[in-house]
């Protein structure tokens, strides 16, 4: 009971600590966007547009852009505290709605990339450690080195060239073929397709996911394989593994139950860190694959000076990142109960 209490206290502490951080991020996003030369009205009207000064001034008044900057900030923060993310200036739609549509796409892509990375990286890392210093170990180490060094956006382009254009096996862009979307439940198309039992949609969504997820996940897979290998090697040389072997525990059980569980601790930390950066760093892969995720929304919005969208998206990113770190910490305490007591 006491230990559970401590974990709960830790969670509450961490959640409370994110509030000032979120406010600071909101403030920083606000300042950064106002520092970009040109306001949304300039961008909307285009250069050399025929609209008169009066029309542009009226539009600015309508959007509240003629207010002094501190007044704009107060309006923005008040709305934020009410949970109102505002309206997209360029698309005239509620920002919350745009984010609700785009975020599941980004999460789905990041999750699939992570699953790909774990499914490839953990077995390779474990086998490399078990077959330490063999040909397999050396080849997988070399390949993971190359994997870490390949930029995801270039991998994506080469993937499109090989698998979409040359062989025609996989689609080049989008999340799912037009008109095949499953009924909206979670927004994650693969999960929705599974929940509604729509296998055609599932297959189609998975085919769309293959290339972007692999392009994003390959580098992570290489990192996962390396970390798993080195922590597995550490654990296999430890006293308690020796003791388990001496007790006569069969080797497969030593590997899975005793060694792997402990060797996973660094991997879990890594997964947390990498998942955060997969969420926040995939706008280029999203751009290449025409993936309608948050990364593309925010890049488009930066170019269009769509202040409310950028501010909200940056907040969502930052909070997701902090949230993922929190979950990683908690998983850590589950895997290593000593941590909870510290």
């Amino acid at each position, binding site marked *: 009971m006491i230990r559970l209490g401590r974990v709960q206290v830790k969670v509450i502490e961490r959640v409370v600590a994110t509030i000032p951080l979120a406010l600071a*991020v909101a403030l920083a996003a606000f300042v950064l966007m106002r520092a970009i030369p040109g306001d949304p009205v300039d961008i909307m009207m285009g250069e050399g547009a025929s609209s008169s000064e009066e029309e542009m001034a009226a539009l600015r008044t309508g959007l509240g852009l003629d207010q002094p900057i501190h007044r704009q900030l107060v309006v923005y923060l008040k709305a934020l505290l009410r949970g109102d993310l505002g309206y997209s200036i360029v698309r005239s739609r509620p920002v919350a709605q745009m984010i609700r549509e785009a975020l599941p796409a980004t999460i789905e892509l990041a999750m699939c990339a992570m699953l790909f990375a774990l499914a490839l990286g953990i077995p390779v890392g474990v086998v490399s450690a078990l077959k330490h210093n063999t040909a397999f170990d050396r080849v997988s180490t070399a390949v993971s080195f190359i994997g870490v*060094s390949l930029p995801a956006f270039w991998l994506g382009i080469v993937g499109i060239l090989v698998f979409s254009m040359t062989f025609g096996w996989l689609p080049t862009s989008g999340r799912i073929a037009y008109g095949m979307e499953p009924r909206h439940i979670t927004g994650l198309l693969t999960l929705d397709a599974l929940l509604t039992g729509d296998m055609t949609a599932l297959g189609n969504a998975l085919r769309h996911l293959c290339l972007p997820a692999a392009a994003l996940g390959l580098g992570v897979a290489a990192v996962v394989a390396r970390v798993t290998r*080195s922590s597995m090697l550490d654990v296999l040389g430890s006293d308690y593994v020796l003791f388990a072997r001496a007790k006569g525990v069969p080797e497969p059980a030593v590997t899975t139950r005793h060694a792997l569980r402990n060797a996973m601790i660094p991997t879990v930390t890594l997964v947390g860190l990498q998942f955060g950066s997969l969420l926040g760093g995939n706008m280029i892969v999203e751009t290449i694959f025409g993936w309608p995720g948050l990364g593309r929304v925010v890049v488009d919005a930066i170019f269009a000076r769509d202040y409310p969208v950028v501010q909200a998206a940056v907040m969502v990113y930052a909070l997701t990142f902090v949230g993922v770190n929190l979950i990683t910490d908690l998983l850590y305490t589950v895997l290593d109960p000593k941590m909870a007591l510290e």
Partner: protein
Amino acid sequence: MGQASLHTDELYQGALARSADMSGSSGARAGFWPRLMSHRGGRLGLIIVLAYVVVAVAAPVLAPYSPGAVDLVRRLVPPGLRTGNLLGTDQLGRDILSRIMHGARVSILVGLATVCISAFVGVGLGMVAGYYGGVLDRALARFTELLLAFPYLIFVIGAMSVMGPGFWNLVWALSFKGWVEFYRLARALVMSEKNREYVEAARVLGRSDGVILTCEILPNIVNSMLVLGTLRMGNMIVMESSLSFLGLGIPPRMPAWGSMINDGRRYMLTSPWVATFPGLALALLVLGMNLLGEGLRDVLDPKMMEG
């Protein structure tokens, strides 16, 4: 794009472990070159990086054509020895090999400048924060937390739209967050070094804090910074290419690998060489940087070498 987090984490553990059982860099420095040369990965990495540096420095002499020379008659010529364009030409008839060579200058300079600025700021602040602690340390802790909560790429994209494309704009935008990793590692190392005997001894001898930090502690953490710098440089080069790919990095008149890859996207089906070769050049350089960084870490960290 978060690839370096692994390196930093491993490095961090290794550096702390080392600083716990070694009290001077002189031992590690003896025989540095022979050891780096006998480290297979490190040697390969060094050769790759040196080759790129030579090509970058000598690009105006080595490149067969001017990187900006447009020849619309010879558009999208396939690679080959007989055509006179070893790696082919792009959609404007510009020689890809020449552009890759000149692009190496841009990539290496951006990487080097960013890492130098980041290391200078990060190590300086990290050492002061780690040595004195107190209000400055706490304020920096909050500030770095805030910076880390921003996705790096969004941050740099935002900053680049404030400042516009340009070489130095890109370097500043990348450095603005790049120093955090140096700061964190330097701070942690100084915190573990400052209570060691040699620092105590220097204090007893009446050395000032400034002298202790620069003459006593800095030489003991400089190896770790060197390794981190090498590994971060590969990352910075990928970031530079990503931004140039989006049209936000290096201005179009300068040849940069990222913008070359973006140009080549449209011709992927008919002329795949336009995007493929700059990508390979980028991947090989990053591979070389990573190999060199890991080699340096193994050589400068005897404890990990045994394992």
